[in-house]
């Protein structure tokens, strides 16, 4: 019998520090993986932490880790050439095929950018696969902006908006909550456009409401929940919402289902 709790070793190929507390680790991984899925990354003796996949490439995955606790602080001590223990990938992830040939809007806030980074990267490189692509990315302040390298690329798409909730005087970029920019989106066909929203719970509810108000069907809205995913196997119970385990059935949910889930 396989021990599903047993992690494997994965080599750190590259470390890319965004801010003092946010690093992206490129990890050796050859298996099949989808954006939106996550790994349980661990330092033995310190613990495991669920980290969503922020980038996918040939033979590697990228994990953006925010230093917020014991495990992540310990992960930050590691450098290229060293290894992490990992289990996964877990969760359903985003099904990119669903968006192909349709207009796609991605709204992401803060660390919520991480799980959709793979989605944005994919369609930024393959604009032809969608019928229009808008991205609204929000951070709390200019200092909190993540993935500056990626954003530089994403900016080439004229449907891209980067906003900060607030900034000190002299900041020339866009300001305000992400919801402020939803009314500006031009829909070609409101009935088929696909919306992906990832961020803090209240931000997702507010954004979904704004799209529904504009006439987007609930079934075309996708969100990704962040909960306490600990075992990744639907057993430990911590991430349960109603009869769904976020680690198994999610983290990506269709809004028509997600709105019935109770914490």
């Amino acid at each position, binding site marked *: *019998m396989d021990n*599903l709790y047993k992690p494997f070793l994965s080599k750190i190929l590259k470390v890319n520090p965004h801010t003092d507390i946010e690093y992206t680790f490129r990890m050796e991984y050859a298996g099949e993986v989808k954006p939106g899925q996550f790994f349980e990354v661990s330092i033995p*003796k310190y*613990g495991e932490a669920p980290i969503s996949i922020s980038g996918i490439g040939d033979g590697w995955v990228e994990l953006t880790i*925010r230093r917020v606790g014991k495990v992540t602080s310990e992960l930050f001590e590691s450098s290229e050439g060293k290894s992490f*223990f990992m289990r996964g990938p877990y969760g359903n992830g985003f099904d990119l095929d669903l968006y192909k040939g349709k207009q796609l809007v991605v709204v992401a806030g803060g660390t919520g950018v991480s799980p959709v980074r793979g989605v944005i990267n994919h369609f930024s490189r393959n604009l032809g696969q969608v019928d229009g692509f808008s991205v609204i990315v929000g951070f709390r302040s200019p200092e909190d902006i993540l993935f500056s390298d990626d954003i530089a690329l994403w900016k080439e798409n004229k449907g891209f908006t980067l906003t900060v909730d607030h900034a000190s005087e002299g900041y020339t970029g866009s300001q305000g909550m992400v919801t402020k920019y939803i009314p500006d989106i031009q829909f070609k066909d409101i009935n088929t456009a696909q919306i992906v929203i990832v961020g803090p719970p209240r931000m997702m509810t507010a954004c979904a409401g704004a799209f529904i108000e504009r006439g987007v069907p609930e079934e075309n809205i996708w969100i990704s929940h962040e909960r306490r995913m600990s075992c990744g196997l639907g057993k430990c*119970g911590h991430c349960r919402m109603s*009869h769904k385990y976020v680690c198994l059935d999610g983290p990506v949910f269709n809004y028509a289902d997600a709105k019935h889930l109770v914490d």
Partner: protein
Amino acid sequence: MAYKISESALDAIIAGLSAQCAVYAPRLLAGWGTSSDVDIVGYAKIEKGSQIAFDKKSMYSFKEAILPISQTLFYFTEDEMREPRPAFAQAVVFLRGCELHGLSRLDDVYRADGKLDFYYEQLRSNTKFIVIGCEDGFESCFCESMGASGVPACDGYILSRGDGYVLISNFDELTDLVKAEKAEQIDFTPVPAKNTLKVNVPDEIPEEVATSPIWDEYDARCIICGRCNFVCPTCACFTMQDIFYDENVNAGERRRVWASCQIDGYTDIAGGIAFRKTKGERMRFKALHKLKDHKGRYGRNMCVGCGRCDDVCPEYISFSACVGKVAKACKEVGGNG
């Protein structure tokens, strides 16, 4: 096959079993209560039949025998991780009928979709389960209402009667021991337990019940100690813990411990976020899991009506009373409860 056996024969049979494997049973543990000079029934190893507590319900359920409260998953040294040896190779667990129904709920979670839990399976699949018959049940029991009063197929059955015991054996090791005692064979069919407490259990709970005001009273009543979860034969949640040893920081272990959805920290995620802050929300989360959400996933109610959470609650919060409140709330929101 059913046999009539005496007290001394039972002693000999259990002694024989415990020579072959670990035997766990509800047992009166002297001074084990929270208050002084209070004896309570808990799960412990036994060597004799007379150590089985037939006349009292155990405070904690059988589950600790196959799902240890604190279980090491891996031992770590500098470059290696090693799984520990299981707590036992073979075991026999005596348990009440409600608890055997509880086992099926644990199976729902730990064996879901063929994704077997390695550690659970190690112990569970090497355990024989013998049901201790309840004819009348205890004051707080409501297994009948929860549809868990019958005796499911099991490895054995024992009933304490005025004139000794009725023992049904469904496995060879036990049958051999029973035969060695020259026990008299009898015709016997276990009957479902009967309860005086009857609870109206709703078939379907509309989602509006989640926002019903019935949960508010628990904000003031519950002390979020988690006892209800820990005594429950169906609560399956656990929390992972990694540690290094003080004496040698290069070695350590990863373990899992029972978790309680009532206790602070259960929903905490990085960045200081928690999802259910009020006690009422936590009670609602637990109650709806037992009565709705587990069923939504696995097709049967999680709660088996054993009443252990009622018996243990220091604040006298009764789960059976809560079930009644849920049923009433279902009617109020127009459900078919």
